[in-house]
């Protein structure tokens, strides 16, 4: 086949290139620039080399935030994925219940992050919040401002409330694509409810579940707004996740060098994770 070579076609990608340059590459390079320099104000910068990276990778503060973040991601995945599957399995397949359920499920997803945070911040307050007040009235010593455990529970329940719907909707989409004949055949074959789930529904949900895990992991690993609004990272540093810590360092303490180094490490972790998930997904497809 004769291909037409025309290098002017490269001009076609120019707009996208410019857009990406201004929105991503240039800001990222600024961060790289900060991460290898030190400043004492007056816009004077000194070469620092890998100093900030070494400091970051050996600091307890970074690893503690990282640990908290991984535990958080693990817990919300362990709750949201099974819960999402369970709800999707029990949603109606036809009739008036379908639109009702879909709208109810979509509602939390439509609420902006900071509003979700504000809702739960008020909801959990012991003086005026419905949840906080009722819990205390029932004799539970619940106070997310003082107690790290309560703060964690609040942040986790909030995330589950906010994001389980996403898993539900993805799973539901996978489930409704299964033709009736599969269920009929399973009945004929005498399959139990569990066998239907294990051999028909789960395989069909496989792909969407992988996407759900990927999205929820990424989102929870980058979580910032909601816990920031509710707990501000406290009490102490108990709910200070990576991004909260990063903002504290960069904007709160104005430690531009360490914050930039941390950003880059953070960015590389996310990049590596994305690559792992992408590889897993494409391999899964190739196997098919």
């Amino acid at each position, binding site marked *: 086949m004769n291909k037409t070579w025309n290098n002017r076609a490269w001009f076609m990608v120019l707009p996208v290139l410019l857009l990406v340059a201004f929105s991503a590459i240039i800001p990222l390079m600024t961060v790289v620039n900060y991460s290898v320099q030190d400043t004492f104000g007056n816009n004077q910068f000194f070469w620092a080399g890998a100093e900030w990276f070494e400091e970051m990778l050996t600091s307890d503060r970074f690893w503690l935030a990282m640990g908290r973040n991984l535990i958080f991601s693990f817990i919300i995945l362990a709750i949201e994925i099974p819960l999402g599957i369970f709800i999707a399995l029990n949603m109606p397949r036809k009739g008036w219940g379908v639109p009702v359920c879909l709208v109810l499920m979509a509602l939390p997803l439509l609420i902006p992050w900071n509003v979700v945070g504000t809702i739960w911040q008020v909801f959990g307050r012991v003086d005026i919040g419905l949840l906080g007040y009722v819990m205390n009235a029932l004799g539970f010593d619940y106070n997310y401002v003082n107690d790290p455990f309560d703060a964690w529970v609040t942040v986790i329940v909030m995330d589950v409330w906010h994001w389980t719907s996403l898993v539900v909707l993805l799973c539901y989409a996978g489930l409704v694509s299964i033709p009736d004949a599969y269920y009929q055949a399973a009945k*004929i074959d005498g399959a139990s409810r569990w066998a239907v789930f294990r051999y028909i529904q789960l*395989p069909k949900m496989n792909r969407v579940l992988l996407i759900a895990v990927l999205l929820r992991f990424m989102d929870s690993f980058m979580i910032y707004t909601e816990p920031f609004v509710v707990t501000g990272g406290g009490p102490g540093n108990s709910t200070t996740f990576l991004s909260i810590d990063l903002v504290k360092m960069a904007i709160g303490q104005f430690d531009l060098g360490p914050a930039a180094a941390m950003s880059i490490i953070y960015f590389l972790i996310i990049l590596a994770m994305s690559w792992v998930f992408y590889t897993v997904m494409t391999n899964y497809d190739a196997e098919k």
Partner: protein
Amino acid sequence: MARIDIDHIRHAYGPNPKASKDYALKEVHHTFEDGGAYALLGPSGCGKTTLLNIMSGLVEPSEGRILFDGRDVTRLSTQERNIAQVFQFPVIYDTMTVYDNLAFPLRNRGVPEVEVDRKVREIIAMIDLETWSKRKARGLTADQKQKISLGRGLVRSDVNAILFDEPLTVIDPHMKWQLRSQLKQLHRRFGYTMIYVTHDQTEALSFADKVVVMFDGEIVQIGTPAELFERPRHTFVGYFIGSPGMNVMPAAIDGTIARVGSQTIALPGMPVAATGSIELGIRPEFVRLGREGMPVTIDKIEDVGRHRIVRTRLEGRDLAAIVPEDGDIPADPRVAFDPAGINIYADSWRVDYGSAA
């Protein structure tokens, strides 16, 4: 194996059916004998799949009862009825191996593993997938998948009946023939009660001992392939079975003579109770094209290989005739009807002849 009685079954998919047009299935009353090979034949939407699903328990009929060997099973679940069913499109369990797919119905019923292994090996050999047995089922072609579906239906030896819902739709023609003869062989060997739904007359006629022809929610005729061919009970059966279908033309009856337009045709006997709208039906196989009889004009000659189909017009009505490949088609064509092939219909239903006059 069981005898299946369909006792005045009616079914409507919508709620509160009133008029007979609300019913997908209008009053079916029939017995499928133990060990019979039946075909349910009819065009799309005639209710044959509905009837099949009612037998297997996937659909509960609006009215009427189903009996297996005299036992009422109308309210029993599919599992309790112990039926095997093969669907139009292959259903396989993607994540399982071919072997496990076939073992699945047996394992679900707690059959001992030794017995499972014996049955599965036998079926795998029969559907010719031995080399695939340890492979995941998801990589197979459509006809291999459908063979697995068939295999899952056949693997249980204790079933009351095996139902097939157009199972060969996705299969290549040469495989169709092979699978059909394998099914037939199985039927002879094990004496399963088999009911086979299809809209393909060749499939129905070659598979079944008895063909049940359905039209618009009703059974219009039950008979052997020969009966359906020679004595269609309803003009629909005449049209639907045969290629091309039966010629049907309005006629008037006068004793043992039928009049079509200005032509008179001798009948083999005197039709009894021929009232209403009368039609004469004759298959193209019984129309003799030659130099004697009624004059016709020829529209078109189709050569289909083994013979030729001659499309003619008799008294302004279409009439197809079959002429042998080497048969002579004269310049001044005329047709004669073989009396043995003439059927008389009153309001679309066949009427019998009385004693020959």
